[in-house]
């Protein structure tokens, strides 16, 4: 179902949606773009490149209370699961790389043991994607990892900016539903619109972006170079700060801790929080033995998880090429450079 929405009607669509859901969109604040709640009447514009923090936060927040526990002395503890209860949300301006990351997150959280907290949030959020007519960041490389500036997987709606109007394509039932709510605002997309969209998408694909030379050889290169000393030289500048994984749309590692609010009677919450394979003590055993105690080993884990292990387990890369881990690394650690180095090494 393909439609056309005039640019000046975007605000009205958001207003209609606000009746039944919270509306989020990229907003420029504190010198960077991030998804924020769009207040009624606030202007909705899309010249954001990509947001600093990915759309991952809507389905996998940094802090999730798993359940509350309370225990009167001498009695059995009461556990009250706290499944997320926030209402439906519509997120505008989601780039295709964040959308494709949702497909990866779905694989992690719903295959095997299904995670009810993730599922509850995932069912209630609608991702309205915006195709990239030009690469949002100098470090984009989605084409190298099987994506494209107008890929729709993981998104519910894909919008493409044309002059003065948006081409809106509903991809899922949820997408059709939120388009249906504001039926009157849309016009039918004619043949001219469709051909213009094709031209814009083709132009977007032809834009130069960073590239991993031979992606299919990278996995082999990573496996063969597992013990290569190059990992330590590549990670020599790494300070183990964790920004790369916290800002990655498909990183999902977490920690579980108890937060006690009172000791008698014992009461508190068991909380899941983001965690990070670049922190030194992420894999520290209680005996003090740490299988990955150098920055080189930890960088290897991050790169191999994205470009080798996920391929071996699900035969797709976990990395979707958004480039956030490159742009926001304080010391310039660069997954594209590491992949190319390891791919060349595969040649020898």
């Amino acid at each position, binding site marked *: 179902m393909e439609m056309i929405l005039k640019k000046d009607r975007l605000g009205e669509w958001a207003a209609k949606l606000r009746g039944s859901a919270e509306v989020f969109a990229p907003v*420029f604040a*504190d*010198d*960077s*773009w991030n998804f924020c709640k769009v207040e009624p009447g606030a202007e909705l514009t899309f*010249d*954001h*490149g990509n947001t*600093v*923090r990915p759309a991952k936060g809507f389905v996998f927040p*940094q*802090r999730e209370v798993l359940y509350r526990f309370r225990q009167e002395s001498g009695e059995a503890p009461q556990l009250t699961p706290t499944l997320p209860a926030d209402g439906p949300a519509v997120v505008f301006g989601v780039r295709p790389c964040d959308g494709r990351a949702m497909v990866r997150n779905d694989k992690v959280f719903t295959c095997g043991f299904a995670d009810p907290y993730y599922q509850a949030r995932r069912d209630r959020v609608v991702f309205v994607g915006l195709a990239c007519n*030009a*690469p949002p*960041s*100098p*470090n984009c490389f989605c084409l190298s990892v099987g994506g494209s500036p107008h890929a729709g997987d993981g998104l519910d709606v894909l919008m493409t900016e044309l002059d003065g109007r948006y081409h809106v394509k509903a991809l899922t039932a949820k997408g059709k539903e939120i388009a249906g709510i504001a039926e009157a605002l849309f016009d039918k997309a004619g043949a001219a619109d469709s051909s213009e969209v094709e031209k814009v998408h083709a132009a977007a694909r032809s834009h130069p972006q960073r590239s991993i030379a031979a992606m299919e050889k990278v996995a082999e290169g990573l496996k063969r170079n597992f013990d290569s000393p190059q990992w330590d*030289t590549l990670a*020599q*500048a790494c*300070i*183990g*700060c*964790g*920004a790369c994984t*916290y*800002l990655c749309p498909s990183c999902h590692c977490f*920690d579980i*801790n108890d*937060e006690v609010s009172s000791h008698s009677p014992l009461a508190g919450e068991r*909380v899941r*929080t*983001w965690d*990070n394979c670049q*922190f*030194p*003590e*992420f894999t*520290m055993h*209680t*005996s*003090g*033995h740490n299988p990955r*105690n*150098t920055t080189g080993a930890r960088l290897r884990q991050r790169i191999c998880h994205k470009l080798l292990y996920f391929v071996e387990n699900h035969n797709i890369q976990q990395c979707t090429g958004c480039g956030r881990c*490159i*742009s*926001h*690394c*304080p*010391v*310039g*650690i*660069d997954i*594209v*450079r590491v992949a190319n180095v390891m791919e060349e090494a595969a040649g020898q």
Partner: protein
Amino acid sequence: MVAIEDIRARAKELLESGKVRSVLGYRRGTASVLAEPAFVTAPEDTAALVLDATCVENLALYLVNEKKRQKTQRSQDTRPLAVVAKGCDGRAITVLLQENYIKRDEVVILGVSCENGGMIDTHKLSRALRGKAATGAAFDGNGGIKVAFTAGETTVPAAEVLAARCLECTKAYPLVSDYFFGDKIDERSYSPRFTAVSAIAEKSPEERSAFWAGHFERCIRCYACRAVCPMCYCDECVVDSTSFIVNPTTSADEKACRIRWIQRSASPSENAMYHMVRAIHLAGRCTDCGECERVCPVNIPLRLLNTMLEREALEMFEYAPGLDPEQPSLISSFRDGDPNDFIR
């Protein structure tokens, strides 16, 4: 301007003569507009060394990291490290010497003067380009900075893009160095010292409280500010109560009775605790290299906390960090003239 060829020549000589284990400098990066740290061991690689407005990293951090790495990997090479040090970086090395975390013979300091220039601030650059990423930035010689980005180029007045610490910097060259490049310029034509922190300090308590509550609420506790700070060299941070470094001799009691000063989740109260405890641990030690503010992915103006304490230390205790490796530290010294009226 500092002639980069002199630095390259000196670095090459130091490596060829075997006087130093490796040279820590800057080279062009692939990831962003900023130069990246370079660990040069082969003399011919010194040709890649650069020095310009994008060399923002404080390389004193890698003196600390190399010292830790040597301790764990027990490498026999005990030759010193040569490090390129701007004014603020040089003062950070001086504080490390003052706290004898590193010995004077373990480091060869290649002091460089920023003269009347300075380093760019990636957040201000992002503000000037409204969120787009820059791919190049250089002084254009008459008070402006030429900024390149994917779709073109623009020139911006230097004051609008230079880091706040450089605008407020009064001594743009290190005092302690083995070799020195550039001229020692003292009067700099930008803004007076502590401009940024005074602007916040003058606000009303409610405004300040809302200002900081908003920032602490956004913190994602990725600990980039602590990881990039050369002064935060403790193996075990008091704040890391949920995951701390253990070794085979750590007893079960130590692990069981470890106090959890703050919770692992990034809630506003725990974030406020973390940032305040870190700031107080940097009182009289932070040399305002601005790295914590630069690396913060959610743009929290962390520098304000440290420069506020730095101003108090200067005005109330006449103490400035990083000027002399022999001076006692702020917290472990006192004077009779210290303020006493607040005690009642």
